[in-house]
């Protein structure tokens, strides 16, 4: 480990079209907490074309430094230029911890950076901690505890990378809180020269098509979500009906997405979106840990399930045991009657 290195905790600051992804800002907030335990600074790594104007936002959210790699070749994300440049920088500066959002981009490049630098990498962590551990009488300072549900969500695993210099993790958007920015925070921009070999830019983007998603689960005050218990389109229609009456967004568990009942972009849980609405109504969702990881911070939770022992009841504030086809019409009627 390089004792001269002051910034031991790094965050990949993902941007597209000059817009920072929320997940990078969320990770900066977490990185500050991790860095404090290591008495270290936090650095963001920013790649793009004419993106220097994004640096103040990164400082406001907790970065002390921004490694700025600014080049026209980096305008659109491509695997090799991005992964190779970050790899070089990591090899050169040797941080202890590097965090990536578990996005299409983060999950594409983090494994390549970890592979080349022989770092430990854990995907989709739901919690991160820094601790000094003693294992078999050997002390390992500043280990990154990479915590995630595993094996169908029946267990929570804590992963460590004790024998390597660099510890990496990916984290889904929304899992970490963003914290409030401090516009007065200042930091240092460290420009890094960008040199790319023709081989590294041989993959060409022929066409790109993106539509802003009409789905905003993260911002919805009320969410009605269906799971495998609503396993027919007829049963799922009750969920849409309830959502319409309440002005809520509709979401689903992974089981509902896998069964084709609802779009993947509406999936709540560890491998979907993490939400914190005022009210979350879980209909026919058994409540595996991966799902609970994505909704248990909701202010109020109503669980509707015909399995009286479903784990979802353990995180719910209100539990209604029975068939959704019986319960939801009653719930709609009760809501309508009290509106007047």
């Amino acid at each position, binding site marked *: 480990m390089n004792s001269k290195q002051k910034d031991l905790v790094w965050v990949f600051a993902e941007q597209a079209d000059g817009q920072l992804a929320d997940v990078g800002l969320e990770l900066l907030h977490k990185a500050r907490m991790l860095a404090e335990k290591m008495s270290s600074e936090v650095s963001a790594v920013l790649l793009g074309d004419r993106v220097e104007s994004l640096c103040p936002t990164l400082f406001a959210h907790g970065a002390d430094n921004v490694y700025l790699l600014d080049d026209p070749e980096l305008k659109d994300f491509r695997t090799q230029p991005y992964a190779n440049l970050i790899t070089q920088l990591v090899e050169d500066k040797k941080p202890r911890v590097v965090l990536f959002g578990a996005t*299409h981009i983060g999950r594409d490049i983090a494994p390549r950076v970890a592979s080349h630098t022989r770092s430990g990498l854990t995907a989709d962590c739901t919690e991160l901690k820094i601790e000094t551990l003693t294992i078999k009488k050997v002390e390992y300072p500043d280990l990154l505890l990479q915590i995630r549900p595993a094996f169908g969500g029946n267990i929570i695993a804590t992963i460590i990378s004790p024998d390597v210099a660099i510890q990496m993790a990916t984290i889904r958007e929304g899992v970490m809180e963003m914290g409030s920015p401090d516009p007065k925070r200042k930091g240092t921009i460290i420009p890094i020269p960008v040199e790319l070999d023709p081989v590294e830019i041989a993959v060409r983007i022929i066409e790109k098509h993106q539509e802003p998603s009409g789905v905003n689960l993260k911002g919805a005050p*009320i969410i009605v979500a269906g799971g495998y218990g609503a396993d027919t389109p007829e049963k799922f229609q009750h969920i849409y009906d309830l959502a319409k009456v309440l002005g809520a967004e509709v979401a689903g568990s992974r089981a509902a997405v896998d069964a084709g009942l609802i779009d993947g972009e509406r999936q709540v849980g560890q491998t979907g979106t993490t939400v914190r609405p005022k009210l979350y109504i879980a209909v026919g969702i058994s409540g595996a840990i991966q799902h609970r990881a994505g909704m248990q911070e909701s202010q109020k939770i109503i669980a509707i399930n015909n399995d009286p022992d479903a784990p979802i009841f353990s995180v719910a504030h209100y539990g209604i045991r029975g068939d959704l086809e019986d319960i939801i019409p009653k719930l709609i009627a009760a809501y309508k009657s009290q509106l007047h």
Partner: protein
Amino acid sequence: MSLHSIVLVKQVPDTSNISGDVMRPDGTVNRARLPAIFNPEDKEALELALQLKDQFGGRVTTLTMGPPAAANMLRDTLYMGADRAILLSDRRFAAADTLATSYALHKAIQHIGDYDLIFGGRQAIDGDTAQVGPQTAEKLGLAQISYTQEILNLDLDKRLVRARRAIKNGYEILESPLPVLLTVIKDAVTPRPFDVKRLCTYKRAVSKFEIEAMADESHDLLWVDELLEKAKAENLYIETWNIEDIGADVSMCGLAGSPTKVHKVENVVLSGSEFKNVPATAEGMNEMIGELMQDHIFG
């Protein structure tokens, strides 16, 4: 030049089918109780490779790293249309994390030698990490196209492939020189059923472990070489490779070659919150809605 695709496949425990007796009382998982299946996205990756073979000719090789029982899945790949199946299996590969896995796979791919395209599923359902594909590509020094939805064009003269991949809220079309590694996401394509003629032929395909077990049963160990030669001659041998066969460094494989270690595993503890059991009656719902309204949840 004829097209050669390698498809990385994995046999996985069916995590979507976890029942009570799979979990031991101490919270650990009894893998033996879980049915083993062909990782769904890997199966789609194989289908994409087979479709290219249908169109352009050439060969498809399937490669897995796993326990001897993974030969079952390799037979499935032969039933679907693979020309050659390779089982990378060695006790010293056990407990590999994604880095050690991709190290072993890349050594095996180098041992195979020539290839134009490498396919794999985006992720395996027992870990959902999506790391092995990109890490294998990196170790081979290859470009990658992750989240592949469709192959749009393959130009073997110019040695270029064009593919559509999923990105946030949309897709992009990339063109990459060959060779390249592609990871395939679910619902890209529907895997073909087993071909009945191929099934009749390749159900007799055997790995080295299976040949050894057959010889063992007959109490004639000398028989192994004979059976092996016979299987090879009939093109019914599931090639079985160990660490030495692929020239891998033992210290880079299995647990020893894995930077990530499981520090601890906990049973999921459910946090109890204030909980109200609401009767499924109009009165019960009215009371609950009333409380939520008082808490200003609806407005």
